[in-house]
C-alpha cells in the first residue's frame, strides 16, 4: 500500500515549521508547535493522537479555514499565506472537502440542501446540483433522509450528511475530522470502504483524524501527534 502512495507523485500539501498559537503571555497555548509534513496526491493519511494534541487545529490549517501563526504552508506549490481571503475561498471551493468534528450543518435546511451548498458556490445548475447531492447522500445510505432537517436526524446521520457534503463537490482532497466518531462499527466500516474506494479509484487524497485504530487501519500512512508536534509518521503497519 505504501508504494501506491508513490514518492514520485507531486507534493500536494507541504507544511514547514507550522505553529498555531492561541492567547498571549501566560495564557499562551501552542496548539501546533512546529509541524513539518508533506502529503502527496493520492495519499490516505490518518492522524491520531491524544485529545488536545492539535489534530483538529492541524486539519483546519490544512483546510485553509485557519491561518497558522508561523511557518510555511504550500498547497500545490503555492504559498497559502500569499493568497487573498477570496483566493483561499476558491481553493476551498475547488480542491477541498471538509468534514467537521461537530458536523456544522446549517439548521433549518434539509440534508439535501446542506449537501448542495458547496455545489451552489461551484456554480452548478440546480438540476445538476440536485442529482450530485442526491447521489452523495445515497452513497452515505441516506437517500431516504434527504428532505429531513439536521434537527430530525441522529448524530450519526448528521455525520454522514456532513461527509456527503464534503464529497458532493468531488474535491481533490478530503479533510475529515473524526468522520466516524458517532457511528457504530458496521456503519463506520461502510463509510471507510466508500472513502477507500474513492481514494483508490479516483485518487482522492484523504487526511483523516480519528481515535479508532480500526478506522486508521484503512489509511496508508499514520501520523501520531502529541502536544502540537508530530511524534511519529510512517506507513500504516509500522507506526501503529
Amino acid at each position, binding site marked *: 500500500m505504501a508504494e501506491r502512495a508513490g514518492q514520485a507523485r507531486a507534493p500536494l500539501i507541504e507544511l514547514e515549521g507550522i505553529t498555531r498559537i492561541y492567547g498571549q503571555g501566560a495564557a499562551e497555548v501552542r496548539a501546533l508547535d512546529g509541524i513539518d509534513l508533506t502529503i502527496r496526491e493520492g495519499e490516505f493519511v490518518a492522524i491520531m493522537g491524544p485529545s488536545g494534541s492539535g489534530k483538529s487545529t492541524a486539519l*483546519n490549517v490544512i*483546510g485553509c*479555514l*485557519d*491561518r497558522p501563526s508561523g511557518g510555511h504552508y504550500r498547497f500545490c506549490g503555492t504559498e497559502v499565506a500569499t493568497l487573498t*481571503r*477570496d483566493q483561499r*475561498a*476558491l481553493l*476551498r*471551493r*475547488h480542491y*477541498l472537502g*471538509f468534514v*467537521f468534528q461537530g458536523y*456544522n*450543518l*446549517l*439548521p*433549518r*435546511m434539509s440534508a439535501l440542501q446542506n449537501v448542495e*451548498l*458547496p455545489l*451552489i*458556490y*461551484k*456554480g452548478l445548475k440546480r438540476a445538476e446540483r440536485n442529482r450530485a447531492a442526491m447521489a452523495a447522500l445515497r452513497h452515505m445510505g441516506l437517500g431516504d433522509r434527504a428532505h429531513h432537517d439536521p434537527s430530525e436526524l441522529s448524530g450519526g446521520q448528521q455525520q454522514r450528511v456532513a461527509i456527503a*457534503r464534503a464529497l458532493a*463537490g468531488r474535491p481533490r482532497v478530503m479533510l475529515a475530522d473524526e468522520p466516524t466518531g458517532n457511528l457504530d462499527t458496521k456503519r463506520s466500516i461502510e463509510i471507510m470502504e466508500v472513502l477507500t474506494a474513492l481514494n483508490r479509484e479516483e485518487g482522492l487524497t484523504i487526511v483523516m483524524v480519528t481515535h479508532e485504530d480500526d478506522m486508521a487501519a484503512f489509511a496508508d500512512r499514520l501520523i501520531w501527534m502529541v502536544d502540537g508536534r508530530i511524534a511519529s509518521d510512517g506507513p500504516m503497519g509500522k507506526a501503529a
Partner: protein
Amino acid sequence: MLWETIRLALQAILRHATRSFLTVLGVVIGVGAVIAMVTVGQGSADQVTADVEKLGANTLMVLPGEDPLGGGPPGTALKMFTLRDNNALEEQLSVVRVSAPISQMRARVVFGNENRRTDVVGTDNRYFEAAQWEFALGRPFTAAELQSGRPVCVIGETVRDTLFGRADPIGQSLRAKTLSCEVVGLLRSKGASTFGTDQDDFVIMPLRTFQRRIAGNSDVSVLFAAIREGVDTERAAREIEALMRQRRRIGAAEEDDFDVIDMKQVASMLAGITDILTGLLAAVAMVSLLVGGIGIMNIMLVSVTERTREIGIRLAVGAEARQVLMQFLVEAVVLSLVGGLIGVIAGLGMGYLGARALSVPFAPDPLIVLVAFAFSAGVGVIFGYFPARRAARLDPIEALRHE
C-alpha cells in the same frame, strides 16, 4: 449568480420565518406610525389654514379693554363703543373698506319644541360684507328694518338645523329671549373650525333691535373692520388706534383702553399652535420610528451568532465573502422593502381613518413617506448587513466558533 444569490436570500427569509416576520414588523411599525401621525398632523394644519382663509383676509377687530381678551382691571366696567365710533372708522380712515358695529350676548332661542343657546348678535348689513357671508336663503335686512329696529333676524345654518331641521325657516318666527322675531335670511354654512368652534351658530338681528329689545342699552361691543385690498394691516391697525384714542380722549401718557386685533394674527397664532401639535405628533412618531428601529436592531443582533455560524459554514464550503454578503444584503433589503411597503400602506390607511375621525383633510406628505421609508429600510439594511460583513471578514473557523 445574482439570481442565485436572490434565491438564497429568499430561502433564508422563509427559513427564518419568525426572525423575518419580526424584522418586517419593526419596519412596519416605524414607517406606519410616522406616516399616520404626520398625515393627521398635516391635515389639522391644513384645516387651520383653510379656516384662516374663511375668516376673511384683512379684517381687524376693535374690542374694549386693555388686553386682547377684553378683560379690564377687576370691577371696572369696560368703556364700550358707539355706532358713531364705528362710522367714524369707515368715514375718516381711507384704509378701512367697511366696518360693522357689533353687539352680542349668549341667549336661548326657541321655536316650537326646539331650543338652543346661541350667540344673539346685533349688527347691520355691513357685517355680512365685512365677514364675507353669503346668503343661502332669504335676504339681508332692509333699510326700514334697520332704521326702526324691527324684530327680524338672519340665522346661521346650525341654528336653522336645530330649530327648523330641513324645513324652510324663512317667514317663521323664533323667540330670542323674550323677543319674537321673523327669520328673513339664512347664511351659507362656513362649517366648523379645527378647534371645534361652530362658525354657523348665531342669530343676527338689526343693531337697533338688539340694543332696545335684548340688551337694553345702546352699546357697541365690537367694531369689525375690513381693510381695503393691498393695505398693510399693521398700518391700518395703527391708524385705527390713533383715531380711537382721539375719540375716547385718551391722554398721551395713558394706555389704550381698547384693543385692535388683527384676525390674521389670531389665525396665525392658531396655526402656530397646530404647528406645535404637528411637531409633537412628529416627535411621538420619531419615537415609534426609533422603537421600530431598535426592534429591527435587536432581532438582527440576537441572530448574529446563528448568522455568524452560517457565514462560517458558507465560507468553509467555498463561498467568497462578497457572495455571502450579497446574500445577506439582499435579505435585508427585501425585508426592509416589504416592511416599508406594508408600513406605507398601513400608515396612509391609519392616517386616512384618523383624518376622517377628526374631520380634517387627508394630507399625505410624500417627503415624510420617503423619509420614514428610508429610515426604517436603512436600519434594516444596516443592522442586517454590518454584522454579516464583520463575520464574513473572519477566518471561517473563527466564524464557526462564534458563541
